[in-house]
């Protein structure tokens, strides 16, 4: 049984039919990436998994349990955390408080402290800005905070929606290294990326989305070599 399974999921924004029958799965221990151009439905898929959006049709299963009609906080309680598109930093909470909110569902104070140290190791920049308000951070710092905050929940499954967005090239590489190391420490990851090259490089498997449908799927290294993918998403002529 896969950790996460979507079966023929249809999601809507009012009358807009954004997901048109998505089926995918993520196995425990994997990094799975979703790539696709603007408006393909990548973020909508993430929102549907996390309960911010309820599918009109289809099923979302987490470890075999249906979660598609649950409220977001119930899904977090089952070990799914995310760094959302747009980062959603609490602008008038300090960096420290933002990280504390990431650990909201936990009560193991000593281990929360340890995890925070681990976040500071990954992103030393954050530890220098602990008392600064989230809204005053630079875009890149906010991105680090969003990822760090998601890690504070000690997720079994981590959803990352464009974690490299707005980062300087050096940092992009660092972020992808971080993603790999988080995964090696036991966290399963569903990664949405515009930067398909990097995403396919770190992922085990991938799905290609187009206008709300999955048009290709397979091992990351096969997708990397796929003609269509190379043309459409890796910028080759």
């Amino acid at each position, binding site marked *: 049984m896969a950790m996460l399974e979507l079966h023929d999921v249809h999601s809507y924004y009012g009358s807009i039919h954004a997901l048109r029958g998505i089926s995918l799965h993520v196995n425990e221990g994997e990094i799975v990436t979703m790539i696709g151009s603007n408006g393909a439905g990548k973020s909508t898929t993430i929102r549907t998994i*996390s*309960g*911010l959006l309820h599918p009109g049709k289809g099923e979302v299963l987490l470890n075999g349990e249906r979660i598609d009609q649950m*409220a*977001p*906080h119930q899904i*977090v*309680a089952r070990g799914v*955390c*995310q760094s*959302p598109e747009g980062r*959603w*930093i*609490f*602008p*008038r*909470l300090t960096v420290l*408080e933002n990280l*504390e*909110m*990431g650990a*909201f*569902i936990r009560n193991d104070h000593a281990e929360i402290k340890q995890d925070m140290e681990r976040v500071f190791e990954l992103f030393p920049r954050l530890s220098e800005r602990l008392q600064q308000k989230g*809204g005053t951070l630079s875009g890149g710092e906010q991105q680090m905070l969003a990822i760090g*905050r998601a890690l504070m*929940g000690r997720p079994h499954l981590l959803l990352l929606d464009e974690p490299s967005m707005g980062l300087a090239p050096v940092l992009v590489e660092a972020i992808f290294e971080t993603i790999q190391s988080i995964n090696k420490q036991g966290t399963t990851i569903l990664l949405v990326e515009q930067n398909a090259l990097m995403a396919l490089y770190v992922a085990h498997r991938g799905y290609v989305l187009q206008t709300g449908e999955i048009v290709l799927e397979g091992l990351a290294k096969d997708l990397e070599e796929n003609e269509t993918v190379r043309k459409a998403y890796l910028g080759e002529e």
Partner: protein
Amino acid sequence: MSSTDIILQQLLNGLTIGSYLAMIALGYTMVYGIIELINFAHGDVFTAGFLISLTLFEWFGAGGKTLTGFRLVWMFTLVLILTMLACGIINVIVDRIAYKPLRKAPRLAPLITAVAASFALENIYANWKGPSQIFYPDYFPRVDILHNWLHLNTTVLFTTQDALLIGLTIPMMLGLRLFIQRTKLGKAMRATAQNAAAASIMGIDVERVIMTTFFIGGALAGAAGMAFGNFLHTGRYLMGFDAGLFAFTAAVLGGIGNITGAVLGGFLIGFLKVFSDQWIGGQWTRAFIFTILILVLVFRPQGLVGEDEAEKA
């Protein structure tokens, strides 16, 4: 009275009036902060605090006489706690019935049900206690502090009942501030106010936070209603409309959604009201205060201490 005495007296009056307005204003601003709704029924929860505490004193056999000694301590504390609980629950019920089903509806809908909830509560009170003025006895002892205790030679009057009002409301406001700044639930309330969807993906149960907010706002309004009864001794089923209007103005003046702003706004309105009553004339007070409200909204819509939009984003 000398003019310094008049000024001193009015400052004290402004402080007492401001303290209960600030308590009510907090409820407006907290609820607005979280769900962007003006809870028009909030002033009526203040009325509930007045009526329920009065009824509880009667139940416990206070019998219209001033309480003393240990009886004063236990009865007053118990009535205060029960009143706050009851008013907190009333506010939660109002949310459950009138607002929660409309959480995703256009903003106008819960605004209309808010007005309806207010009318409903007022008419329940009118049927329960009758439409005329209700007398609230001196359950809390009334001593002229400056003359009888401090033996000061002044015409300024400051009684134990004024002190009660201030002594009850200010620590509660400080307590609220500590709760919101320091506790996990308090931080979750701030997080939810800033971005409810983001709060939900932190694992925060947003509906529970909303319920807590209504409860705390209601409990504070209830305490204010009780303190008001022991301070001014008269009220009626419609008293919450008036108090609510001034408190709402205070919240807007301070910057709606901003807790510090609501408290400052409350005291500011308190001072403006006594200033106007004394030096302009009581009949002008409303015209004066609501003109100020309009000017603030036109020239500084974010309120006196509200963040500007850029900072909010």
